[in-house]
């Protein structure tokens, strides 16, 4: 090969000025595959083995084996973005089906085939709101309960615009209707509401909020996820313009926050949608075929006038989510959400029965998680629980938050027994 290229040594092919040539080493020893596996395993074994009763936007639902086995097929895992659709029909169809799943769940006409996560999807919703706004306004309203990671990401996405993010108050972990009535006027371009909220409560004022935003020509952006959407009010029915959230509640186990940005919107914003879209077309034989479409919105064509800078997305996670949803089917999805309501309710009741606790703190319906009051300092309670093998959130001086999503009934029984000892 060197001869064909016409050099004596491979190093001759590097056209690098000598003054910036790196002549040191990184100090990284090569290892065999077996040694590397042992290294990673030994590092990760330092993670404690805890029963995680954690949620607040990231969940550890059981993922069926079929998801791993199918998604790990090399053609899915090792292919590139589908810029040659004739040899990537399978992935395009899977993404088309994923988009269709979101269309059914949200009732909105358009879903893209992924953003990075819920936080970046929220950021993209804000920049879309800025592009399509019908008022001269510049305010974006988000709940005071919003997670820091989402709020912080939103702040960066709007930094290059004239949008200003403000928080609105909540009342017993639902939107404070009196306060929001004061805040929403025609200077507001976007109202962001989560259902369920980060505290696990189900929002009761969605329809009313949809009307309020419509009256003021603002965009109504709803944060949710595929399991919640299987049971709770359909976003299209409450006037939502955009739905964002983390779709990887299906498809991924807890993954230290790695997610899948859900993004769905109304047809009238089609040309302003960020990210990739898969559409149906025909091939030369007249058969239906799929392709990435409306690419003139995207960075590789439109450059600085693109609707987003996103290129690499979370396609493979979207595949996993689609497979998981298919395994559950509509019956399984609704049933899973239903169990999230009843199990959270039951657990809250059992926690409430203990001495030194009160649950749920909020007089609302809950999905999969709730906040409990503990008479003792919450941080100390959480520490004690952790020593006994359970992880819960600390969300106030005397408030812990508990999530049932990934836990078995046996684990919940053990948790109640342990909590009883800890809070006494």
């Amino acid at each position: 090969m060197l001869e064909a290229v016409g050099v004596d040594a491979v190093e001759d092919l590097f056209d690098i000025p000598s003054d910036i040539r790196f002549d040191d080493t990184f100090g990284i020893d090569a290892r065999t595959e077996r040694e590397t596996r042992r290294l990673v395993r030994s590092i990760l074994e330092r993670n404690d083995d805890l029963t995680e009763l954690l949620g607040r936007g990231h969940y550890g639902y059981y993922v069926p084996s079929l998801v791993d086995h199918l998604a790990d097929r090399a053609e899915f895992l090792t292919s590139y973005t589908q810029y040659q659709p004739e040899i990537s029909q399978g992935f395009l169809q899977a993404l088309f089906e994923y988009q269709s799943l979101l269309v059914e769940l949200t009732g909105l006409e358009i879903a893209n085939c992924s953003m990075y996560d819920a936080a970046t999807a929220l950021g993209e919703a804000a920049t879309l709101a800025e592009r399509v706004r019908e008022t001269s306004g510049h305010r974006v309203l988000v709940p005071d309960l919003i997670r820091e990671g989402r709020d912080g990401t939103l702040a960066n996405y709007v930094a290059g615009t004239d949008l200003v993010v403000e928080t609105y108050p909540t009342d017993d972990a639902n939107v404070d209707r009196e306060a929001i009535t004061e805040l929403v006027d025609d200077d507001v371009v976007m109202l962001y509401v989560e259902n369920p909220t980060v505290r696990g409560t189900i929002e009761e004022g969605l329809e009313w909020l949809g009307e309020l935003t419509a009256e003021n020509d603002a965009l109504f952006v709803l944060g949710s996820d595929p399991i919640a959407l299987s049971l709770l009010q359909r976003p299209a029915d409450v006037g939502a313009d955009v739905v964002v959230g983390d779709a990887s509640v299906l498809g991924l186990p807890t993954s230290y926050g790695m997610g899948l940005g859900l993004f769905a919107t109304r047809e009238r914003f089609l040309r302003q949608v960020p990210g990739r879209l898969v559409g149906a077309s025909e091939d030369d034989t007249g058969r239906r075929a799929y392709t990435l479409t409306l690419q003139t919105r995207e960075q590789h064509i439109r450059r600085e006038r693109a609707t987003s800078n996103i290129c690499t997305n979370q396609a493979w996670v979207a595949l996993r989510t689609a497979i998981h949803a298919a395994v559950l089917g509509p019956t399984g999805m609704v049933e899973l959400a239903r169990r999230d309501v009843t199990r959270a309710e039951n657990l809250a009741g059992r926690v409430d029965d203990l001495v030194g606790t009160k649950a749920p703190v909020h007089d609302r319906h809950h999905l999969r998680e709730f906040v409990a009051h503990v008479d003792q300092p919450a941080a100390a309670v959480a520490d004690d629980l952790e020593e006994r093998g359970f992880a819960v959130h600390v969300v106030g001086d005397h408030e812990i938050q508990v999530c049932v999503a990934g836990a078995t009934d046996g684990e919940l029984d053990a948790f109640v027994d342990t909590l009883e000892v800890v809070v006494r």
Partner: protein
Amino acid sequence: MSNEPLGLAPDDDEPTADTAAGYDQARYVDNGQYEPLLAEKDLTRVRIGETVSSTDGTNAEGDTTHVDSPLPEELTRDALELPELSEPELARHYTRLSQMIYGIDSGPYPLGSCTMKYNPKFTEDVAALPTAAVHPDRSERSLQGTLELLYRLQEYLGRIGGMDAVTLQPPAGAAGEFVGIRVAAAYHEHNDEGHRDEVIIPESAHGTNFATAALGGYEVVSLPSDDGGRVDLEALEAALSERTAALMLTNPNTLGLFERDITEIAEMVHDAGGLLYYDGANLNALLGRARPGDMGFDVMHYNVHKTFATPHGGGGPGAGPVGVVSELAPFLPSPRVREADDADSNCGESTYELFEPNHTIGNVHGYQGNWLVLIKAFAYIARLGDVGLADASAMAVLNANYLASQLEYDIPYGPFHHEFVASAGEQDAADVAKRMLDYGVHPPTTKWPEIVPEALMTEPTELETKATLDQLAEAFNAVADETDETLEAAPTRTTARRIDQTSAARNPRLSWQSLE
């Protein structure tokens, strides 16, 4: 189900080169369609209500079932309608879909600037370890394994790029660019230089550079290249001003050429008060031979799905860690990982903690980015070490140069490294790509960069053997000799034939609900 036999392409569509391997991609046909949609196999409507008392478990096609709702009617939807299929049906559905995809494990994949290298299988196994499945809100004390792996990856990447501090939060390369732009903005504002509102980007740069600068609120100043295909220093001088916030560059550039004047470029940008940003897309060319930090770059992103072999997954997930010089470290996203001063550490093991950089730009992801991808990148680097990484670059550059030497197409710019851009000349590069599919290889990136007419941007990476490179060259050369008519009729040996892009865009049908 009536499947057409494979290899049904008419005789006159056979590839003409004698040396072309026989090739037909999986093609299932049923009822006039390729594999039917899930929704065409079943749709079951589940009605949700308080009134019906039991769940009907039967799921016959088109059936309606009822589920009791534990919530008041006004808080729930009325129904959910989706496919209800058995596990074996789904196993077949997705297996068939997978067979209608061409991946790296299917054959050569020389997509320029995409660095489609082999993804070692063991990295999937370590990312799937149960000890990796952790929630981000757990106490730092209970997550020492995760924090240690992140810390060690930060260290690895810092050394590989010659950078002082690294954040792992950006979930993709473009998100890494966004961090770079936001860090630059925060740095300038911190120094009362907030008036800087321009970012300079070479015309041949990746589209994400332009889009990212615009997302950050910057004006884009486009920089032409010189006759040799590199940064035109005079044009750069003219573009630089007190409005310059940063220059974004990749090196080697998209033509595969090393920017020989990089030291001078860095000096010019710094003299103007700007920062120099390194787009890590082409880092695979330089491992162990040159580092962005030593060239004068202030901030860079790494594409772990390019340089560090994490699988591309049909579009993602990737990860786009960002490295910076020490002066910019206080602005990085929060939180980062560091070694703790551990007075009470046991067994001599270090302990790790999260911290918020002093002047942090905040977050660009809800949590800490694509954790499972970061594990794979760490495992890849730990496996290869210094020797393996340097060897990967050497083989990538040799393979590109060897493949180029075997092509009939003109390659106007050199000397190139890990990739080259050939010109299809009078042929349409997009048609060339379609025709190459019939030879059982993935085509190069086409029509970009525009500085080369009908560009064929080719990057074979280190993974290919000489035999595969020869196969690739034969495919290129066979197509080079074919007529426009043949090219326009291609592909014929693939699952689907040429797909009508115009009607897809003109009449968008983006869900099964939108099909007639």
